[in-house]
Each structure stands twice: as C-alpha cells, then as structure tokens.
C-alpha cells in the first residue's frame, strides 16, 4: 500500500492528508461496516438453529418477560452479561434441574440463609413455570462451550456426589474442608448416622430437629435420594 504524501505542506493551506490516503481510509471504513452487516445477516441466519429458535414457545417468551420485568439481569449474569452480583444462570437449568429452581424461586432466602440474599418476588405459579421454561431454553443455547463444564462436574465421582453438588448441599454443609459452615460437617456422616436416618433427614429435616432451617428435598426423585443417602452414609 502506498501513500501519496503532500510534501508541499509548508504553506499550511492544504490538508495534511492527501485525497488518496483519505479515500483509502474512507473506503476501508465503509468496507468494514459492510463486512459487519454481512456477518450480521449470516449470524442471524445461523442463530436460529444454534438457539433452537423453534422451541421459543409462548411460555418461554413469557418467561423471558418475567426475567426482564423483575430486572433479574442487573444482579444475575446470563450469556456472560449482567450484574455479576448473583450467579450466572446460563446453565442453571442444566446444573440444578427443574425441582431445585422451582423450590428456589418460591423461597430464595431458604436456600441460602446466609450471605447475599435474593429478594422474594412472590412469583405466581404460572410465572415460575414460564421462568423455568425460559431458563431451560437458555441452557440449551449453543454458547461455544461457555461457561465451562458445570461447577463441580469434574469432582463428581459417584451419582451421590453429583446430586450433593447439583443441589448445592455444600452451600451449608462441608465435606473434608470444602463447603459452608452453617450446617453440620458431613465428612464422617456415615459413622454417625445410618442411611435410613439420612433419608428421613433429606425428606423432612424437621422431624429430627423441629427448628431446622434446612429445606426439604422431598421433591427429588427417589433414586436421587437413594444415591445421595448412599454417598453420605459411605463417608466414614
């Protein structure tokens, strides 16, 4: 690329940049805008499949509006964008599942009794349904692998560990030094309690301790509860 440079500039009457340079700058800038528009057309065409746009049911769209109406995005992050105050929910549905999300949305304070709190918006059942449907749709968007594998997946060895992490039991309980301190340490739970006792605790924490703040995980599938109890009973 050559530049035609005006060396007779001393009189100051002419512009610093000769038309040829000027034209090159104009042309490349315009070209970049056109390339961008072309890529936009191409992207929008491909995004239909990448986002499963055919699954944008009325309920999912309603859920998006619930998400926007309560301004969730100014605390939570989604697709990498947001308030960075509360967890990224892009893959929440994949990590936590339906039951957890419903339970959380009904009484956010119960799930995380200490630390940062999410206000209880007293969502109607239908709003929760559509919000969960929306989060399910979001979790299926092809995001080029972002965010990386669900938290804790690498550490999940048995089905029970996976459930322990997916249900975020470690928010309150800790095992071998990792986890919260609000609830008892479970590192040696198997030597203190039987599997049956643990199952009762999972289903109805208050049967053992009437003022327990642990939420009930009754709604988990029975097989999950079995796996979780097996895992905890194995900790000796």
């Amino acid at each position, binding site marked *: 690329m050559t530049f035609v440079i005006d060396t007779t500039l001393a009189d100051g009457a002419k512009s610093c940049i000769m038309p040829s340079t*000027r034209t090159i700058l104009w042309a490349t800038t315009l070209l970049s805008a056109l390339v961008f528009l072309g890529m936009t057309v191409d992207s929008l065409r491909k995004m239909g499949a990448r986002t499963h746009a055919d699954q944008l049911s009325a309920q999912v769209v309603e859920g998006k509006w619930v998400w*926007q109406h309560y301004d969730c995005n100014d605390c939570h992050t989604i697709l990498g964008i947001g308030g960075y105050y509360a967890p990224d929910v892009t893959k929440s549905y994949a990590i936590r599942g339906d039951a957890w999300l419903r339970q959380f949305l009904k009484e956010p304070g119960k799930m995380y009794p200490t630390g940062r709190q999410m206000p209880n918006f007293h969502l109607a059942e239908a709003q929760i349904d559509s919000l969960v449907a929306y989060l399910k749709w979001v979790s299926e968007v092809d995001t080029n692998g972002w965010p990386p594998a669900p938290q804790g997946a690498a550490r999940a060895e048995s089905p029970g560990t996976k459930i322990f992490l997916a249900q975020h039991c470690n928010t309150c309980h800790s095992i071998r030094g990792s986890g919260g301190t609000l609830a008892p340490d479970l590192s040696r739970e198997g030597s203190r309690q039987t599997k049956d006792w643990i199952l009762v605790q999972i289903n109805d924490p208050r049967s053992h301790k009437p003022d327990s703040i642990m939420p009930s995980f009754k709604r988990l599938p029975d097989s999950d509860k079995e796996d979780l109890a097996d895992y905890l009973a194995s900790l000796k």
Partner: protein
Amino acid sequence: MRYKSQKIAREYFLAALALFLLQVIFGILGSIKYVWGYDPLLNVIPFNVARAIHINLLVFWLLLALMGATYYMVADEIKTEIYSVKLARLQLAILLVSGVTAIVGYLFRWSFGMPFLEQPTAIKLAIVVAALIFLANVALTMFTNHHTLTRTTATLLGGMVMLSVMFLFGIPFMPNLSTQYYFWWWVIHLWVEGAWELIAASLVGWALIKVTGVSRQRIEGWVFAEVCLVLLTGIIGTGHHYYWIGTPQYWLWWGAIFSAAEPITSRPSILSKPSACKRERFRETSSRTVPIWAANSWLVRGRVTSTPSEVRLPDF
C-alpha cells in the same frame, strides 16, 4: 463565550453534575451491598435496582454533558447563535423528566430489564423525541451558515446521528435472548466504541484548535484519521461481545483481531499531551512532516508504538 445562546451549556452541565452526584451515591450504596453480606434494604432497594439507577444516571449525565458541550461548540465553530434556545431547553426538560421518571420507576419494579436499557419503552420513546429535537436544533444551527461548516462539527453531527440511530436497536422486545443481546450490543458497544469516540474526537479536536496553536488543518487531519480508525476497528470489534451468546464461532477470530486493533485508535489523541503539541507546533513551522503517524504506525510499520516517548512522527 462569544454567543449568548452558548449559555445553555451551563444548564446542561449543572443537570449533568447533579445526576453525577446521584450516580456516586447509588454507586456507594451498591458497593456496600457488594462487600457487606447483610442487606437491610433487600426489599426496598435491592442490588439490581441500585445498579439500574446507578448505571442509568451514568448514561444520562454523560449524554447531557455531551449535548451541552455540542451546543457550546457548534455555536463557536459555526459562528452563530444556536437555532433555538427554547428547543434546547425543552429537550433538556424532556430528558430530565424521563430520566427521573425511569429512576423512580425502578423502585417500583417498572423496568424493561435489559442492563443499561432498563427504561420502559414509553420512556425510551420520549428519549427518542428529545434526541430528534436535539439533532434538528444542531443541524439547523449548522446549516443556517453552512459556509463555516467545519470538518470538526460535521464529525460531531455524525457522532450524534450514529448515537441516535443505534439507540433504536435497544427498543424492541425480541423473543430470542441471543438476538436481543446481538442488537443490545449495537447500542452499548457502538456507542462506547463508536459514536462516543466520534463525539469525543471532535470535541477534543476543537479544544486543541482553540488552545494549542497547532493549525486547524493539522488537527482536523488527525481527527479524521482517528475517526476512521475508530470505526474501522470498532465496528467489527463489536465481535468481541459475540463469542458466547449463541452466535457463530467465527466471531472468536473476527472479534479478537479487530478489538485487539482498537487501542491503536487512541494513539492520535496523544496530541492532547502538551509536549506533543509543542513538538507539533515546532514541526509545523520547521519541517515538512506529515502527522498521520497513527495511520502510519499501523499500516506501514505494522506495529503500535507503545509509549508516548516512542512516538516519532515520520519524515517523508
């Protein structure tokens, strides 16, 4: 101040200052929430509301300041009074009322829910009306005396038009979040790394013409080079927001390369350093150099000079 109507800038400045102070207050509130686990205001002003108010105030005061500065500068450049001071005041009033309404609305959960663009649609439309009044007022001021229309003012108008057009992409509700975010960035990114750069370049260029003694031709050449490089890198540079939002994978390359080139565009503004101006004045009178080193360092030498001391204007 040569023209009476330039005084309108003062009203814009005071309004911007008030909003800035409010922004700081809500920023402090948000940061306390951030650091302090316990939040007594959880059900009154939760973090999302504090943040929405904080960032909206930022955008509002910046826009008011840019608009006020535009009125001040355009009158000076075109050498005429502003077309209508009444319209300028009306526009300021619309912006202030809609801004305050939006902020109070957030406290009552009246929100569109996209970060920075939380303003409900009715308020966004009011902002569009104010922007149209502004553009008309500035354009009418410019074209009443078009013989004195300078490249600096044309750049400013271009930046303001771009600003207004881009805002439109933030208004509709799109069912697909990925698409919504695709166009959300047309407002957020193309404002910050597009329109605002144009506006800032022309305002800084004008100030430099006024205070440094470097000739208009030279500074306008720099402004032109800067604006082109900003757009050349910044438009496709939007791609650095398209890595993981459901967009095709090629954006990882395009976004990375073009946004890596974006900082180059800030090089011409090195002229705002007093030492650089001194050198420029010296060169202007003593040699036949061409100060397009910004373009030069990038296109010819293929690298960016890393420190101001390294900046050397090429001799041709």
